[in-house]
């Protein structure tokens, strides 16, 4: 299973980015292989539409879950229709490695 996590940096020591559509990086973590892919958010500079464009981006990576600090209502409704599960982590001090650990416990 693949999971997308919003990240402030391009390595697993970076902290989670609380803004879904305007995060710095998306991390695509594969729970089977343990691999991580860091993708700079191409929509960071968009004036509007960063949310849905980011949904487009992570969904096209084939993820089944997305971890971030917050999701707007528009974004939520598209993810719902795509049957992608959203996990809200309200702790900005969490590192990507912490979240990967949490995902592996489940």
């Amino acid at each position, binding site marked *: 299973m693949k999971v997308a996590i919003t990240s402030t940096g391009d390595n697993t020591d970076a902290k989670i980015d609380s803004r879904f559509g305007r995060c710095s990086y998306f991390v695509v973590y594969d729970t089977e292989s343990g691999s991580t892919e860091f993708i700079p958010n191409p*929509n960071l500079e*968009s004036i*509007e*539409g*960063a949310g*849905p*464009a980011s*949904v*487009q981006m992570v*969904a*096209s990576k*084939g993820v089944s879950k997305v971890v971030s600090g917050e999701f707007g209502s*528009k974004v939520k409704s*598209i993810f719902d*229709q*795509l049957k992608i599960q959203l996990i809200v982590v309200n702790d900005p001090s969490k590192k990507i490695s912490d979240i990967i650990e949490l995902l592996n416990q489940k």
Partner: protein
Amino acid sequence: MPVTIREMKIAIASGKGGTGKTMVSANLFYSLQNAGMKVSLVDCDAEEPNAAEFISGSSAGVSLVSQKLPVIDTEKCTFCGKCFEYCNYHAIVFLPPANFIQVVSDLCHDCGACVYACEYDAITEINKELGKVNTMQVNGQCRLIEGRVNVGVYSSVPVVKKAIQSLNCEDIAIYDSPPGISCPFIATVVRADYVVLVTEPTPFGLNDLKLSVATLEQLDKPYGVIVNKAGLGNREVYEWIAQKNIPLLMEIPFDKEIARIYSEGRLLAEVADGYQERFLVLSEKIKQACHE
């Protein structure tokens, strides 16, 4: 005092709500109207229009504002992706592996490119109502035009534009602008000849004022400042505008009586001595600034 203003569009704005911009707009409108001018007040604060609480008029028509919205029929769609490529506004979410394609209505700019792009007749357009523009006749030759966006509509810009377009060459138009500095604010002030920024002499007021000024500088619009609730807070706003050479157009004191008049939906210019004259002086200053 002779007031001989012809054709002038004034936007009254502030960085946040509640600073008194509607009070200024409504009083300026009232004073000019009372002085025999042909003036219109356009309430562009379409999310929360409230100028009508201060000005009464008789209804002179309502027009609906709508937008065309493309809808994709997933039965006909072959997932060729052409519409997705054509859309410049990220308004189409397109995920062929999930058999998913959808227009995100809040982002759609009604440009029609996707309809043009689709070769499979899978996209049709429906009308989506965004809001309305109410026109009220005030004292014969003056009008209050109110833009009101529907609840849940993402952007009030189309309603603001329609409200402003509903004017037909009144001599003076006053735009009660949306608060903030985002698209609805910009859509309002770009259509004005002069912008009046209403602020409070507090650190928050100064902070918002700086943001508004930065935006207006980019747009290259002439502007000046009214300090409302003068006497409250500190001198920082005054020092900053003096240093920036921004004209201080007027001060309205922080006063219980003024607050009471406002909360009762009445106008200073109507009930408080000297205020009609003060608002006419304000309009003179703006006129001069416009002609500089």
